[in-house]
Structures are given as C-alpha cells and as structure tokens.
C-alpha cells in the first residue's frame, strides 16, 4: 500500500521536498520504525531525522506517539515541535 508522507518546516527543508508517496517495506510497523527506515534513505533524510526524538508525527491529521502502529495510515506527517500562537 502506498502511504503519503508530508513534511513541514525544517524537516521539509532538510529533506528537500514537501511530500512524497512511498511503499513501506515489511517490518516498518510503528512510527519509530518509519523514522529509522527514512533516516537510512540518504543524507538529506539523515540530516532531517538526526534526532528522531524531537520529530513530531501526525497520522491522518492527528498527533501520535512514536510507538503508534502505522498500519492503514493514508497520510503521515513529520514536523518539528510546533511554534504557533
């Protein structure tokens, strides 16, 4: 299944694109797995996800923790801590 990944703020700038569609390999089951897998995809990803603990994640537009399962996610967004308001 294809999953849409969306990036914001410095995560978007470092990866070098606002979004992409990916086919997640077997074994990528949680948000933490996804971050680990993405980080291995090249130096842009390595730069963006150097400190995975600070990356915030939303699945289908709702905040989730890194332990969350990603099965069935249509849209997964990765971004830095928010600075609105």
């Amino acid at each position, binding site marked *: 299944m294809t999953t849409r990944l*969306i990036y*914001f703020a410095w995560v978007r700038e470092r990866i070098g694109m606002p979004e992409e569609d990916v086919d997640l390999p077997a074994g990528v089951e949680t948000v933490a797995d996804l971050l680990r897998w993405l980080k291995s995809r090249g130096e842009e990803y390595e730069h963006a996800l150097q400190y995975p603990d600070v990356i915030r994640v*939303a699945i289908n537009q709702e905040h989730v923790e890194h332990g969350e399962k990603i099965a069935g996610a249509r849209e997964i967004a990765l*971004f830095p*801590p*928010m*600075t*609105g*308001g």
Partner: protein
Amino acid sequence: MTSAVVPVVRIQAQDFDVAAEIARLTQGRADIGAVVSFSGLCRDEQGTLSALELEHYPGMAEAEIARIAAEAVERWPLQGLTAIHRHGKIAPGENIVLVVTASAHRHAAFEAANFLMDYLKSRAPFWKKEHRADGSEGGWVEAKEADDEAAGRWKSSD
C-alpha cells in the same frame, strides 16, 4: 439554560477585526456576562525582525484547533468561542492569533481563553520562520519548553 455552543474556528491569511469578532459572539444576546479576548501579535524583537512567516498544515490546523475548542466547551460553561489563526507572512505589529470566549461569569471565560492559548501553542500545527531586518536568513523559531509545561498544567487526572 445554555444551548450547545458551536465554536468558530478559522485559519486564514488575511487579518481579523477583534471588535467585530467579539460583537459576533455577543450581538442579540442578553445572557452573556463576560467576554475575554486574547490577541497575539508579531513583535519586531527590538527592531531586528522584519516579518514572521507562518507555515501550517492545512486540514490538520483546523481539525486540531477544533478538537481543542471542543475540549474547552466541554470543560467550561461557555456561551461562545472563537479561535482564529493566521498563516503566511506577517509583519511586526500585525495580528497572528485571536481567541474569544464568552460566558455568564468571568472565571470560565478567563480560564477557557488561557487553556485555548496554551494548547494552541503546543498542539496546533503552525511553525514560525523569522525574516531579519538586515535581510539575513533568520531561521525557524524554536519551541519553548515553557509552552509545553503551560499546556501540561491543564491535564486532568482522569
């Protein structure tokens, strides 16, 4: 008796009119005893900042603020609630965010507005980038731990 409050949530590039938004909540009603409004503005940081660029997650920004607003309506006896957040390039002195709460008494209105702002700062998907007055790249504003702590104090034990 209070009817169900439907919060007004807007994400927009254009400015808003604080007085008009307050009037929208109160006009034609005689049961509201307290209105609290909070406006967040762009500061110039002692003249070093020329603008803030606010990036947002379209769709989720509306959804997340609506979730926060729904929680406020559940926790306090409100008679009206409006939350507006701007995106795009905003110059010093301009509005960024507005929260208006209306209630029969002041405590609910004050507390709900405070809660909304604390949660909005730590959970609404917006990111600020600075544009410096000297033309140099300012970079992304860093999240403050104090904002997370401020949101944490509203967590109920249940």
